């Protein structure tokens, strides 16, 4: 019952692209970037900035997750540990050590990277389903650590005071905070895009599609997978640390296993292994959460239903379906 259809592999992965198609893909990505960033620059004039900032933090988180699952074929069910732990450290650094926001974010990101090295070395020992279970268990361990450790404030979490001044100069209020988050997101997004289209990313995709063949070609696949894992952990940490600064708090919600599930869902809804999918998925889920928050536990049910629907009928996600539709249209012409 084993199979070939890896998550995230599209038809393109199966058939090598002609160079004309490559050019077309590059053009599509460039247009997508321009459109996305144009929307994000003017968005705060129309949409509530706090909502946008939350969505951008989750979008970066989902993109980092997608780097690992969509391009590395590794399903981590414990990514909340990077988001949450980085959030705690950056909130603590800002509050107790009085660090400026950018240093607090760096501290959080560094912590998540270190956590990524340790958990990656452990988790990478197994593949597939075991990898998912191991990351979930490791994240649960981090959750219990955060519940008990003195510096996290247990059930209450950490409430930081004012956001402070960027580089000690610019107070992060209103739009200044929004555009800071926007720049952080854009940098992370570009980095991921560069990684995916670098030789490293090509090897990663080769490992996703056929690890045995990549090994036989002489690649040390463990190292590639570990590097992808650490990169994904670091970027998730960047998202979590930024989120903690924006919302001036860090809490247990962000290290809980439900958060790990949520980032899987965002990526799945938007489109596994697509460049823009996780961003779309994050905006959809955050919007859903803010509109359906009064539904309480029905929201959990709704998430579950979307999971089931995505797996059974909608595996390409929103952006994946869109891309498939565009491709079909092009071939008809």
């Amino acid at each position, binding site marked *: 019952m084993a199979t070939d259809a890896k998550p995230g592999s599209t038809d393109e992965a199966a058939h090598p692209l002609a160079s004309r198609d490559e050019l077309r893909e590059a053009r599509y990505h460039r247009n997508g970037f321009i459109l996305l960033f144009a929307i994000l620059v003017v968005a705060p004039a129309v949409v509530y900035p706090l909502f946008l900032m939350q969505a951008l933090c989750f979008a970066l988180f989902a993109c980092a997750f997608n780097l690992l699952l969509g391009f590395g074929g590794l399903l981590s069910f414990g990514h909340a540990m990077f988001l949450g732990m980085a959030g705690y450290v950056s909130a603590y650094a800002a509050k107790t050590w009085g660090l400026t926001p950018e240093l607090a974010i760096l501290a959080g990101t560094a912590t998540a990277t270190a956590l990524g090295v340790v958990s990656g070395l*452990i988790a990478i020992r197994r593949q597939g389903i075991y990898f998912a279970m191991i990351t979930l268990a490791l994240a*649960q361990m981090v959750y219990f650590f955060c519940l008990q450790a003195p510096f996290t404030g247990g059930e209450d979490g950490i409430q930081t005071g004012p956001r402070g001044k960027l580089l000690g100069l610019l107070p992060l209020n209103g739009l200044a905070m929004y555009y800071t988050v926007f720049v952080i997101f854009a940098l992370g997004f570009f980095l991921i895009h560069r990684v995916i289209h670098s030789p490293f990313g090509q090897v990663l995709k080769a490992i996703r599609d056929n690890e045995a063949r990549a090994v036989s070609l002489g690649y040390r696949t463990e190292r590639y997978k570990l590097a992808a894992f650490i990169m994904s952990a670091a970027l998730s940490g960047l998202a979590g640390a930024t989120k903690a600064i924006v919302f001036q708090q860090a809490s247990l919600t962000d290290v809980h296993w439900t958060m790990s599930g949520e980032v899987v869902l965002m990526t799945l809804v938007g489109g596994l292994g697509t460049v823009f999918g996780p961003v779309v998925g994050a905006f959809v889920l955050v919007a859903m959460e803010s509109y359906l928050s009064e539904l309480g536990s029905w929201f959990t049910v709704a998430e579950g239903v979307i999971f089931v629907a995505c797996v059974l009928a909608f*595996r390409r996600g929103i952006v994946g379906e869109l891309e498939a539709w565009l491709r079909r249209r092009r071939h008809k012409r």
Partner: protein
Amino acid sequence: MSISIPALMGQLLIGLINGSFYALLSLGLAVIFGLLNIINFTHGAQYMVGAFVAWFLLHQLGLGYWWALLLVPIVLAAVGILIERLMLKHLYKLDHLYGLLLTFGLALILEGAFTHRFGSAGLPYSIPERLSGGYNLGFMFLPTYRAWVIVASLAICLGTWFMIERTRLGSYLRAATENPSMVQAFGINVPRMVTLTYGFGVGLAGLAGVFAAPIYQVSPQMGSSLIIVVFAVVVIGGMGSIMGSILTGFGLGIIEGLTKYFYPEASTTVIFVIMAIVLMVRPQGLFGQR
């Protein structure tokens, strides 16, 4: 350090109880994984539903604990068969990860729906009369119900082991795990066996829920925290052998109990730490094959 025997024995007993649940649930996971190649994330939720069905039988229909022991596994197995027929069977041709994602979604649906209906507070389920009270062993007090749970789950685990390793039906099952199409060629209805296996595994989870109802509060969250520990247990044991799952389950329960006595701060994380160590030393798990 002076050791208080009653306290130590008390923690050991709790460890054995937890171990019974680890063993029962990891056994079900291993049986399902063997044939379906799916990690059943809904297992914890199905265990929770088992406890709720037992509660419902008692409080709405007046059917007591012994009826629950009989009816709950049947109800849950039926639900499982439905899930397999309607959803899981469409996933066998895809990557294993989709099975994990689908069952995770189902777990969210069940947990959300039960939280909505019953709230997060637990519901009490009283110990049946025949099993209340306890024995004074001199060095400790042994509640009858807890002794019953340990003995009963051990019996069920060994019964399952016997059925899979020593009977004709079990040999079909093991053969189908190795090579389903070959077994199918011999005229055995493999798809039906797959369906029934999933039903059986889910029934086991429901039965564990009935065992748990009088010990823990019956609450919508009782499954999700347990299932993550059980995943770690499965990684430590490796899913290759049935007996391995049983031994790992009970063994880790006991280790957890001892940790609760000697170093309580680590009791929630000890199993995960052991998992990390086992992965470094023997990645395929204690009883797993490469």
